[in-house]
């Protein structure tokens, strides 16, 4: 089916919107000391930070998905005051300034925190480990996953789920074989956002996990530190994140293309 064409003014407006994003990046390109880029990117500090970021962001994305999916499903079924309550809770970490989010985690899970002291007594210490990085990133990234998936679940036509149930599928089967595949694009979008938000995460990590090279100093923290020395090198390091983002965006598109079903259904 040919889609109805977009009005010309939308194209113009989209160009404006994209320019708003593109021009600053151009500014970045102009400022970066390109000659120093190879040295900067191959330094131990940079490569360690990059791998740490990749590992922790992947884990955070998966955790946000595993923890966020049930919350999104529950949320999509709630109405009225209960929905407001749960939704508020679910998105709170989104509105907290990241540093506050980190502090909140510290006073909760830190060695002397409400929960942390019990964990510490059991020999589990989270603070200043890579686990802390993952927790901080998950905490701030999960709301984006939840909001994205909840929206999709709400617009899903329940008749398909009912049809599956009348075919004998248990609620779990319905979820696994009908609901999730049908909101697949939104789940992917949510995972993308969670990964992206984790990748750029700085404040919460800093406050909760610290900045130890190889253990907790992710790419954003490395960039921050680099900036103490030289702003331009810091900008050059952020190139890595931009390339990562591009790869990331190409991925869901690829996944989508793989699973392409040639369109929608009656």
């Amino acid at each position, binding site marked *: 089916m040919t889609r109805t064409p977009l009005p010309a003014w939308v194209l113009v407006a989209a160009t404006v919107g994209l320019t708003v994003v593109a021009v600053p990046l151009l500014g970045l390109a102009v400022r970066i000391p390109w000659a120093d880029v190879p040295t900067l990117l191959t330094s131990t500090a940079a490569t360690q930070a990059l791998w740490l970021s990749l590992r922790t962001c992947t884990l955070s994305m998966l955790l946000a998905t595993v923890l966020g999916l049930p919350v999104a499903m529950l949320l999509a079924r709630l109405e009225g005051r209960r929905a407001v309550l749960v939704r508020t809770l679910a998105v709170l970490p989104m509105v907290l300034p990241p540093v506050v989010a980190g502090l909140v985690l510290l006073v909760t899970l*830190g060695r002397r925190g409400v929960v942390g002291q019990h964990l510490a007594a059991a020999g589990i210490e989270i603070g*200043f480990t890579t686990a802390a990085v993952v927790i901080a990133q998950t905490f701030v990234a999960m709301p984006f996953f939840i909001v994205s998936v909840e929206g999709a679940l709400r617009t899903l036509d329940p008749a398909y789920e009912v049809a599956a149930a009348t075919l004998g599928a248990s609620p779990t089967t319905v979820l696994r074989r009908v609901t999730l595949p049908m909101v697949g694009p939104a789940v992917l979008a949510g995972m993308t956002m969670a990964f992206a938000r984790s990748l750029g995460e700085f404040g919460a990590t800093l406050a909760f996990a*610290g*900045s130890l090279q190889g*253990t*907790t100093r992710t790419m954003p923290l490395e960039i921050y530190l680099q900036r*103490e020395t030289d*702003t331009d090198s810091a900008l050059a390091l952020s190139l890595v994140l931009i390339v990562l983002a591009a790869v990331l965006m190409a991925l869901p598109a690829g996944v989508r293309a793989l699973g392409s079903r040639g369109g929608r259904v009656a």
Partner: protein
Amino acid sequence: SSRSPSGHGRTTLTVFAAASLNTAFDEVAVEYKKAHPGVEITFNYLGSQDLVQQMQGGAAADVFASADQKNMTIAIESKLISGGPKVFATNTLVLIVPRDPKTGQGNSAGITGLDASLDGKKLVICAPAVPCGATTATLASNLGVTLKPVSEEQKVTDVRGKVESGEADAGLVYSTDAKQAGDKVETIQIPGAEKVVNSYPIAVTASSRAPAEAQSFVDFVASEAGQAVLEKYGFGKP
């Protein structure tokens, strides 16, 4: 991080140091390790306040190097420090103005110091609540001038960033920052600034599991070799 305080194998020291010390301390560590091959050092570079908060939260540090006395005091009050801190470096405020990146010409706004030449110009300083801001406030009151900044930044790095980019016409930063900024800025010394000194104290923590090695690092920083490195990065003598 693994530690073996009793001497077999390697010992790892975790040093919590103010972010502004990062390049200098990296180099100090290289020098230190030449003399102490059995000791590994990892750094946690953050704002002094973040570091104190993390130690309060239970973070395991062996050495704490603060960018100001205030946070060291808080650390001591929180019983995080063993023994007395030692001031190992100082910093004083300077005024920086942007240089034109193309022509290399500086000070197009014609600023001469903390005086009438700042009228109508965009001055950025640190907010009074942060260490460099407190120093700034003391200096201003010493000099009897009232500063009218367009922004009270929350980190000295942000003051530097605003001046480097030419966004601000002038900014009050530490001399180390001025040095780091290189030829992006022109530095104007302020008479009387040398009397308002910001000190960098260092100390072994109470929770250190390798207090001997920690103390040796603290001593090394204060040693001639350590001081030489720090001087290279613009820090003043204690």
